[in-house]
């Protein structure tokens, strides 16, 4: 039996827009296991980002709770939530979100220097294939390279959990596959739990489990008995 890393208990999020309230997420309820690779799949506006942000301590749900290793993070105050993001979560965004005035290495440093159990930056950068790009600025790198920097920044903190919101969304097919391979490698070699969001069905095949969403609800959680490695994905 796998170890439970995170319990998402009946989590809902609604936004009040004047008179109407938008239910971005309704009654999400599942568990996340250590070391698994989970793909969240769903059309645009289905609540994927909302869910991931709440899991990553970037936002609070309107209802329900989330427990990380039996500790409830949904009751945290701002300071403890920041600490949770700092020590436990690595975030990767669709549009990289790098600091334009810092080099690749400095962008990674920005994360490692504030948290405790950080990994060696140079090791991590070599791991993501950026050994020779350390002193490049974001504007001097391709999209794929920038996303590698973002992944290095997330991984170098040595987090419990890697959360990626459409990490390949801004990249072409080839580059996207390379990024997925990298995330897959990190998942396997470091035994890190990885959650990625996509609306590309094909990517679902590489996950240990696929959480399918529609209109703010989880409609299906599918277990892949034989996940296929990313290099064999086609779309």
């Amino acid at each position, binding site marked *: 039996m796998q170890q439970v890393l995170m319990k998402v208990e009946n989590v809902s999020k609604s936004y009040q827009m004047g008179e109407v309230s938008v239910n971005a997420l309704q009654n999400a309820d599942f568990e996340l296991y250590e070391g698994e690779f989970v793909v969240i799949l769903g059309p645009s506006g289905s609540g994927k980002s909302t869910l991931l*942000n709440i899991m990553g301590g*970037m*936002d609070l749900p309107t209802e329900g709770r989330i427990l990380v290793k039996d500790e409830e993070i949904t009751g945290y105050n701002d*300071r403890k939530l*920041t*600490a*949770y*993001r*700092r*020590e436990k*979560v690595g*975030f990767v*965004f669709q549009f990289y*979100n*790098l*600091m*334009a*005035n*810092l080099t690749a290495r400095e962008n990674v440093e*920005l*994360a490692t*220097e*504030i*948290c405790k159990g950080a990994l060696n930056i140079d090791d991590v950068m070599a791991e993501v294939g950026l050994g020779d790009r350390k002193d490049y600025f974001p504007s001097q790198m391709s999209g794929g390279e920038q996303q590698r920097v973002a992944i290095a*920044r*997330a991984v170098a*903190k040595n987090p419990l959990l890697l959360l990626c919101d459409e990490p390949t969304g801004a990249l072409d097919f080839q580059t996207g596959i390379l990024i997925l391979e990298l995330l897959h490698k990190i998942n396997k070699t470091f035994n890190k739990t990885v959650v990625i969001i996509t609306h590309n069905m094909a990517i679902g095949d590489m996950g240990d489990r696929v959480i399918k969403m529609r209109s703010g609800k989880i409609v299906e959680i599918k277990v892949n008995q034989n996940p296929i490695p990313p290099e064999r994905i086609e779309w």
Partner: protein
Amino acid sequence: MGFLQAYKMAVKSIRSNKVRSFLTMLGVIIGVGSVIAAVGFAQGSTKSITDTIQGMGTNLIQISITGRNSNRNVTYEDLAAFAAENSEEITAVAPQVNAAMTVKHGTKNTETSINGTSPEYETIRNVHVQAGRFLLQLDVDYMQKVAVLGTAVVNELFEDADPIGQSVKINGQVFKVVGILEEKENGQTDSQDDQVIIPVTVAQRLGRATVIRNFAVQAATPEAVDSVMSKLNSFLEKIYKDTSTFRVFNQAQMLSTLNNVTGTMTVVLAGIAAISLIVGGIGIMNIMLVSVTERTREIGIRKAIGAKKRNIMVQFLIEAVIVTGIGGLLGVAVGVSVIRFVIGIMDIVPEVYSIPWILLSFGISLIIGVLFGLFPAYKAASMNPIEALRAE
């Protein structure tokens, strides 16, 4: 994150946004620079007036005849006699006939103030010759056309030649230069150095002034000034019957009048200074607000990776201190240069640098820069990271 890291981030951010940093600095430079220059000008003017009055000599009492009297006017002889009667309290009396006239030497000429007086003037007004001699009683009695020149006049008319023994023309009449006054205000034009002293009798004829309207009286001690003034008042009242036709006043009164004037001037200039500081401050505020708003996304990224509010604030604080600090120093340099090169070279007033005002304007702009750098940064750092990241 350590302080050094925050410092490095701050410097990088300043460097990579040169225009923004420069504009912020510009606000500070203008604010600080204009305050220093304005205050420098005000204090320079005050100093120039104070210097003039204090250069007049001590224990000085001025008599000024303002109205006309049908019977007769007070003469120099009247006052000399009065002084002799009160010799233990009055040391000297000098008549004064002043007029602005053109003095010529060769092809050069200059407009200066002609001061017709007697030898007593030397001790009363504390003006001495550095070369040659002062007026003699003989010059006055025999209406000798002799002149003692101030250094400003010498500078205008004589290049390297020794003026003593040479002649100058005042209103077309030839005068012999017999002495040169000691310099009091660097030989500036329109200062005490810009005058020509001639015998009072000659000046009267030159200016067709039958009545002498001004006298300078020197009291023996500062304590005697009040008593001498009241005696002069009653003496003159006997002659004129009407106290509104003459005025007896002394340096203390002039200084207190002056203090009123300079007090007003200081208030006015402090107002101008405050306005320029406020304008500069609003400039700093604006740029700081814009630049931090512009960087909300940057703050969002750092919040997302778990940076503490404090870490973010420290960086913005350092940035604001560096930018406004450098701006402030440049502002001080600008203000001082304005005093040194504009006010100094135009030579209207002496150069005065006020350290308290320099520190004050520097300090205030620094405070404004830091407050308005920190406040928006605090707002951004308090935002939910998702919202901050969504900012574009």
